[in-house]
């Protein structure tokens, strides 16, 4: 199910009910002994693949791809908690890759079957959340920062202060509705590590957000970019890709990663345990890491690709766009979210419940 557009095309568009559609689908139980059917079940974010990618893959390999969409990592995780519902390739974000590895939900990848790993930027060939990239390969990466309306902003709001600790834009601020992300960004503003789990510091972040609440219009459910585009707010915390998509529609929109640094995320291609077509899954991942296929996807969805061969095929306006590839010194101050254990999850959820109830 898709939602009516109030603005640009959003990747992490709110898709409650999507689960119901996906749950209604039936997957034929593939026999383990027979050669794999020419089929692949792909579970992806919305608007997160090239227009012709799936068709091109079919012409290249004869494999038919069925793509279902999920709205957020929590939905993905909840769906797999009771066992793989029949998917071959999924696209979790780094901290959920770590969670799913911990929970034994991912299948080790056979790198021998994915020669296009050669195309991946060397800095992405290893990751703290998946040492040796045994279970995941990078698909796209990006940042969380501040999207703003240039004509309403006082210069470039390159500080978390403007949305987390100031009444300069009172009533015109949209923050994110995800408690963990909010606490993590508050940590960056307070000068602590992104994944800080000290209870005292979580309380400090909670106090900061509670204090800022009267100035905040809404904790947006991943539609901050729509609110910004429609003039409902002038400044918001958002994923860079979401803001980029509305920047194409409106010249008055800008994006900046604050000077304190923000969150660096990486969505990964993984094969879940129990995938009915693991061979096809490897072929598909290899296809996506191909130069031309990768370039087509990145060109369409306008996210930063870790695929160096694909970047060579793309124009300068993509490769030198600071909203896609922020300046190196800012990236160095950004951090990757890690899976911080169940106690952290509970502490953050309780803090968020209190913030919302305050």
């Amino acid at each position: 199910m898709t939602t009516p557009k109030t603005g640009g095309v959003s990747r992490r568009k709110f898709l409650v009910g999507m689960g119901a559609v996906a749950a209604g689908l039936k997957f034929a139980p593939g026999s383990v002994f027979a050669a794999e059917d020419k089929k692949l079940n792909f579970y992806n974010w919305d608007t997160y693949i090239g227009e012709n990618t799936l068709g091109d893959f079919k012409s290249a390999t004869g494999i038919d791809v069925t793509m279902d969409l999920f709205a957020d990592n929590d939905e993905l995780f909840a769906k797999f908690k009771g066992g793989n519902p029949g998917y071959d390739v999924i696209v979790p974000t780094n901290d959920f890759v770590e969670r799913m590895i911990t929970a034994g939900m991912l299948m080790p990848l056979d790198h021998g079957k994915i020669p296009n790993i050669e195309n991946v930027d060397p800095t992405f060939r290893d990751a703290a959340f998946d040492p040796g990239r045994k279970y995941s390969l990078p698909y796209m990466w990006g940042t969380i920062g501040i999207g703003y309306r240039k004509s309403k902003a006082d210069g470039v709001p390159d500080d978390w202060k403007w949305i987390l600790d100031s009444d300069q834009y009172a009533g015109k601020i949209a923050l994110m509705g995800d408690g963990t992300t909010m606490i993590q960004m508050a940590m960056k503003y307070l000068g602590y590590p992104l994944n800080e789990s000290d209870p005292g510091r979580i309380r400090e972040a909670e106090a900061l957000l509670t204090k800022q609440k009267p100035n905040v219009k809404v904790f947006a459910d991943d539609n901050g970019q729509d609110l910004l585009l429609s003039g409902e707010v002038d400044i918001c915390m958002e994923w860079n890709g979401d803001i980029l998509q509305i920047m194409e529609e409106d010249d008055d929109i800008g994006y900046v990663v604050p000077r304190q640094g923000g969150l660096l995320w990486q969505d990964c291609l993984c094969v879940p345990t129990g995938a009915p077509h693991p061979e096809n899954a490897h072929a598909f991942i290899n296809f996506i890491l191909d130069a031309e296929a990768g370039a087509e996807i990145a060109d369409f969805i306008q996210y930063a690709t870790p695929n160096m061969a694909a970047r060579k095929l793309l124009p300068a306006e993509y490769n030198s766009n600071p909203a896609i590839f922020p300046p190196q010194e800012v990236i160095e101050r950004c951090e990757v979210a890690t899976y911080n254990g169940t106690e952290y999850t509970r502490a953050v959820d309780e803090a968020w419940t209190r913030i919302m109830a305050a």
Partner: protein
Amino acid sequence: MESWRRNPLTFWVFALPPSLWLALFFLAPLALVWVMSFGEKVGLIDIVIAWRLDNYMRALDPLYLQIFLKSFWFAGLTTVFCLIVGFLVAIAITFAPPRRRPLLLMLVMLPFWTNLLIRTYALIAVFRTKGFVNDGLAVLWGGGSSLLQWAGLGDLQLLGAEFEPLQLLYNNFAVVAGLVYVHLPFMVLPLYAALDRMDRSFIEASLDLGAGHLRTFVSVVIPLAMPGIVSGVIITFVPALGSFLTPDLLGGTDSQMIANVIERQFKSANDWPFGAALSFLLMYVTFFAIALRALWAGRGRAGVRA
């Protein structure tokens, strides 16, 4: 009733499928959630059923009680508004010419043909700063303003220097308005059913015997419609209490309802046992409401017999 006893086979042929359905898709999942509410999370995906009340104790923390209270408040307000508006609509349909009634009833049910999410997004387009309501008001303001200008009163700025859009979205007003909008059909249909069955001669008798319209409404129509009112209140209040989409999409920074907390337990907080306990606290309230309803029905029957 007698014939069922004489033909047990016929009885079971008809009663078995729905009973199985009920057991399989209602009682079994519910039992699962109930058992889970006594469980404890171990690690990421495993749940151990410890038969402890920890989750319920945690749910009785003032933090959650306060959110429960707020949800009751929202659902109660929703029910009251639905009852007022729904009664007027139901009366209008009842007294409409019989030829028109099917059409009017269909108009009440028409929104069900569209998904709730789509309807909620449509409300956003109506309520937002540059939405239909504010655009309409802006046009009216422009008209009024130029009229005053023409009348030579322009300098007084009676309507303000410029149009101030109403803040209709992202606050508790939007949540209650959205809940009323969504739940209104649940109220109208049982009320209509009750009012339609009502014997009109009671109203005529009441008016003939000298009671005014208000007195007739309060002393005759409302008591006769009571079964419909009770059903309508219950099937409006219970789902409104468990809403999470509406506060999520229309609410502001302080519109959290208990179902939002429950949803988070099954998603980001990944604490299914606690989520199960919170849901069951809501379930107990629902059971209580239904028990009240049964009590009411029982009293009604006793009254008739007496």
